[in-house]
């Protein structure tokens, strides 16, 4: 993907993924013979710039989590390059590193998981959970370790006294904060956030999103933010990549992608967002059929059986992901011609002020204290 370097200065790029594939073997029969492959990630290209948030969206099973895990080498890639600009050793292709060499890079790349109920080891105390990466890397021990853990907990809004309690004693939002503290422990550069707020209630979701944003600016973090809630992704991302059956079909800055999409699948996804405005009810055009199985994808453009703009060429040729200008990447044969519909801004819905009954409030009341 030379164009990434052409457009952005290459030192702005923290992570560049090229032709990444992750295929899982399908085994069957008594001898567990490999009879095929689930092409969970099937040749994707993208890059993340330093200090930005790249949102990654797409329907369930399209390969978002597999992508996140493979770039952290929690899964071994089938093919492709994962070039990471490590602050100490410079650019390295993680795909080629041996497990032993990875240890050096690992502290700079962390992950936060979706499910705050199963992602924390129930047998460890909060202090042990957050301190574990520090202990494993041999960064701190004894009182220094304890102090660092206390500091990290404080940072995410958990009182350090809670260090000796077990995860079950915390609510979903608090557990997610503990997961974030753990991910922060080693001062990482890149954090893969895999659906970090999907399991949380709206009000708690807002708290956690705000926390992630605060930490990003304070520690100069870069996020790969995986989620299926398109409103959340719009709020938090600088740029967004859309995945469909193991392939990135569109990637652009958030405004361009949401308001001027260039890929028919992106258009369909955006149309389906339920808008929180009862005065604007929509019945989006149905996408025919189902998401194809990544074990047996269609020919040509994977989206062609469901695409209302498909032509003959779409059945035969898979469109490559290409830059159509201003770093707007699209994998569609007709990206330039199609006039697609983006979302409408929801600024007209009134944001109701909170009622007050006391004597005139001293401070402006626009924001609810968090």
């Amino acid at each position, binding site marked *: 993907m030379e164009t990434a370097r052409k457009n952005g200065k290459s030192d702005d790029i923290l992570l560049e993924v090229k032709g990444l594939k992750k295929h899982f073997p399908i085994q069957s029969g008594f001898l567990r013979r490999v009879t095929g492959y689930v092409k969970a990630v099937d040749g994707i290209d993208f890059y993340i710039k330093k200090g930005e948030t790249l949102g990654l969206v797409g329907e369930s099973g399209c390969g978002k989590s597999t992508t996140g895990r493979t770039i952290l080498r929690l899964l071994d890639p089938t093919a492709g390059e994962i070039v990471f600009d490590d602050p100490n050793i410079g650019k390295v292709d993680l795909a080629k590193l041996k497990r032993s060499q990875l240890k050096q890079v690992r502290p700079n790349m962390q992950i936060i998981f979706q499910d705050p109920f199963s992602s924390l080891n129930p047998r460890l105390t909060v202090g042990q959970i957050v301190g574990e990466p520090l202990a494993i890397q041999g960064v701190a021990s004894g009182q220094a370790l304890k102090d660092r853990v206390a500091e990290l907990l404080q940072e995410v809004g958990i009182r350090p006294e809670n260090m000796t309690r077990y995860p079950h004693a915390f609510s979903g939002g608090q557990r997610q904060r503990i997961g974030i503290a753990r991910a922060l422990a080693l001062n990482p550069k890149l954090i893969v956030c895999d659906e970090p707020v999907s399991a949380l209630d709206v*009000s708690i979701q*807002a708290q956690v999103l705000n926390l992630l944003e605060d930490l990003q600016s304070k520690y100069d973090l870069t996020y790969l933010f995986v989620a299926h809630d398109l409103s959340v992704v719009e709020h938090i991302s600088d740029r967004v990549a859309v995945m469909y059956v193991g392939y990135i079909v569109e990637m652009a800055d958030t405004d361009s992608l949401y308001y001027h999409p260039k890929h028919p699948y992106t258009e369909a996804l955006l149309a389906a967002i339920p808008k929180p405005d009862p005065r604007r009810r929509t019945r*989006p055009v149905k996408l025919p059929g189902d998401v194809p199985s990544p074990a047996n994808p269609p020919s040509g453009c994977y989206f062609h059986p469901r695409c209302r703009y498909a032509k003959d060429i779409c059945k035969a040729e898979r469109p490559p992901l290409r830059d159509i200008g201003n770093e707007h990447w699209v994998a569609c044969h007709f990206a330039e011609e199609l006039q697609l519909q983006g979302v409408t801004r929801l600024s007209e819905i009134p944001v109701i002020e909170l009622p007050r009954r006391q004597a005139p409030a001293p401070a402006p009341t626009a924001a609810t204290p968090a």
Partner: protein
Amino acid sequence: MTNAVTGAETSNVQIVSEDDVVRVQDLKLNFYTALGVVRALNGVSFNIPRGKVLGVVGESGCGKSQTGLSIMQLTTGRIEGGSILFREFNTGEAIDITRLEKNGPEMRHIRGNNISMIFQEPMTSLNPCYTVGNQIEEAILLHQTQDKAEARKRAVDILQKVGMPNPERIADSYPHQLSGGMRQRAMIAMALSCTPTLLIADEPTTALDVTTEAQILDLMRDLQNEIGTSIMFITHNMGVVAQMCDEVAVMYLGRIIERATIDDIFYDPKHPYTISLLRSIPRLGVARGEKLESIKGTVPDPYSTVTGCPFHPRCPAAIPGLCDAVMPDETFVAGSRTHTVRCHLYT
């Protein structure tokens, strides 16, 4: 006001309508656990008229699912007060569900013919040992027709209706062979197979992608239009509420704290909790790069009891000395007969 169904007196704040399909009054539900009593529902009242969709929203643990499960008599808690009047429209007969035996023939009949529930977790209502088709056919054979070929035909029809791409094949699949979204649709097909008078949908689309969600919502609207099914739609997605519901009940800690038409909930909400909830959702194209508003703190744990207004520890408008001591009553918002709120700011 006199209750049209039973002739009993009802509280004058409760909204009722001539053609209510279900009317829940002052429902109280407790769980007795080793750790103490959980007061899951503390006097919940609401009605759903024929063909209307009532949205029930609120943070997790506030009692949405338990309200639905109580109507089905499937809750494992103890109903210790109140009534649930259900009126079957074809017969016009009204029954108090709380008086029926949980697993008696009448309750089973209601569950099979009149009220269906779509559960939050699809695997709880699909049997892994039978094909999807068999399970739907069985429900149809039990309640609608004795003809096996006819049952099969109806099962395939309904699978087609829920948007299954290849209904014949899906009918012969076992639940584990389907994706999460397909399982959810299979369950919805099962719930719809009896053309219920009342459908209780507990977060039916929370686990689904937006595209599948849009499809399911469409389907539920068709059902509502064609058969006149009333829907109790439990969700915490305000977007889905705006698109689907006619009226909304907002719950907090086992109580309904605001009840209004869909338009009033979004354009003229009164309760500080409702307002904060609406202010904390990210809106497309609004305030990117700015902080989202959030409600401070969390829902208190279910074993504790809060004095006064249950929302007061988190409420930015709380009135010291009043809100922390006195539980506000449910009252009509001035000038309205369709909008109620439970907050001292409006008394």
